[in-house]
């Protein structure tokens, strides 16, 4: 009996391509399914990318700068949130007057990075005569909103009570942050100056009124209703992980995260900077406009035609990072070392 006819080369190629197409589509479908079902793999992926990258490229001569600063780690107990910690950087040299205190909240999409990765930043600020506390807050998706805000508020309260033991003056305090940390810091400043937000979050502000004198915000997100339009990479993963809600826009407390909504005329003077190629540049411009409209003093450093990306402020290989640093210091100097009683 004759066997089945041999398949021609054309048929073999078509059969192979069909299999490639079917298996490829199955791969895409599997990825899409996983993307819809769980935030964990995406969060782990972004976390791995952040943990690999160095967050700060300090300027030349940093080793000598580092030698002038000392560091202490302090645990922070925050009501209604897991325990956190602050790394406190301060100049080794003693001062005749209490030093202003800065609480810095690091970025990392709410789900990555830590205070140690921003240690060089703490050194750079402390070298300028500040007591700098870098907050190590709980990360998403293991811990959700509002834990980091609670922890930041508890850190402010702790610093207010204990800054003196580090040579700090609790009457001259500032908060700052970058990227997701800028969102947390901006919301913290809103909590300290907007009693309605504090009440809605069931938080007692960590500082007495007017103690928080300045806010420094680098490349953050401040309006949840418009941030989706920025096209920022992996934004959905960050906000799903942080809020614990896949459709984060439907998260019941999402309005609390919009500093553009929560900032009142009592919001502290604010310094804002963002790179001109950073997708969050519109967020910074929006917040600056809102704050100015409410009569809040705002200092901005926005760029045009420079090609500066997200977190340019920490890469001192670019001269613009040096400019940003100098302007940040000038702002802090004006707001924290100006007239007024010290604590």
């Amino acid at each position, binding site marked *: 009996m004759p066997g089945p006819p041999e398949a021609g080369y054309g048929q073999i190629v078509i059969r192979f391509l069909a*299999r*490639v197409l079917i*298996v*490829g589509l*199955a*791969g*895409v479908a*599997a*990825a*899409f399914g*996983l*993307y819809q079902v769980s935030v964990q*793999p*995406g969060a782990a*992926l*972004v976390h791995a990318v952040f943990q690999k990258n160095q967050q700060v490229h300090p300027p030349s001569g940093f080793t000598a700068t580092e030698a002038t600063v000392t560091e202490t780690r302090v645990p922070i107990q925050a009501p209604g949130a897991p325990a956190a910690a602050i790394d406190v950087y301060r100049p080794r040299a003693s001062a005749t007057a209490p030093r202003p205190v800065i609480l810095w909240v690091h970025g990392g999409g709410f789900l990555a990075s830590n205070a140690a990765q921003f240690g060089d930043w703490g050194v750079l600020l402390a070298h300028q005569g500040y007591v700098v506390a870098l907050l190590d807050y709980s990360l998403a998706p293991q811990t959700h909103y509002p834990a980091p805000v609670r922890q930041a508020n508890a850190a402010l309260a702790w610093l207010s009570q204990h800054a003196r033991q580090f040579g700090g003056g609790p009457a001259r305090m500032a908060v700052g942050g970058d990227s997701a940390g800028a969102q947390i810091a901006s919301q913290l400043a809103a909590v300290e100056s907007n009693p309605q937000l504090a009440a809605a979050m069931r938080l007692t502000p960590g500082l007495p009124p007017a103690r928080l004198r300045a806010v420094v915000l680098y490349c953050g997100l401040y309006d949840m209703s418009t941030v*989706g339009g*920025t*096209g*920022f*990479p*992996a*934004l*959905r*993963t960050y906000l799903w992980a942080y809020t614990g809600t896949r459709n984060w826009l439907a998260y019941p407390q999402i309005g609390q995260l919009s500093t553009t909504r929560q900032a009142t005329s009592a919001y502290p003077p604010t310094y804002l900077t963002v790179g001109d190629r950073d997708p969050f540049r519109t967020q910074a411009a929006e917040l600056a406009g809102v704050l100015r409209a409410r009569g809040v003093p705002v200092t901005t450093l926005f760029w045009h035609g420079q090609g500066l990306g997200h977190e340019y402020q920490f890469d001192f290989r670019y001269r613009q990072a040096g400019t940003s640093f100098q302007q940040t210091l000038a702002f802090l100097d004006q707001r924290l070392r100006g007239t007024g009683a010290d604590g």
Partner: protein
Amino acid sequence: MAEVRDTETTTRPRRRWRLLRGIGWLVFFLVVASVSYVVLVMGGH
């Protein structure tokens, strides 16, 4: 006996080839799924 030996010598390489092909398709599937997932995560907003 000679016939049985002939059958064994022809099916073994066929099975190995089929296994290798299966592994190849699985690797292809995983690569496509991984790349798609990374694109979805990084592009998601």
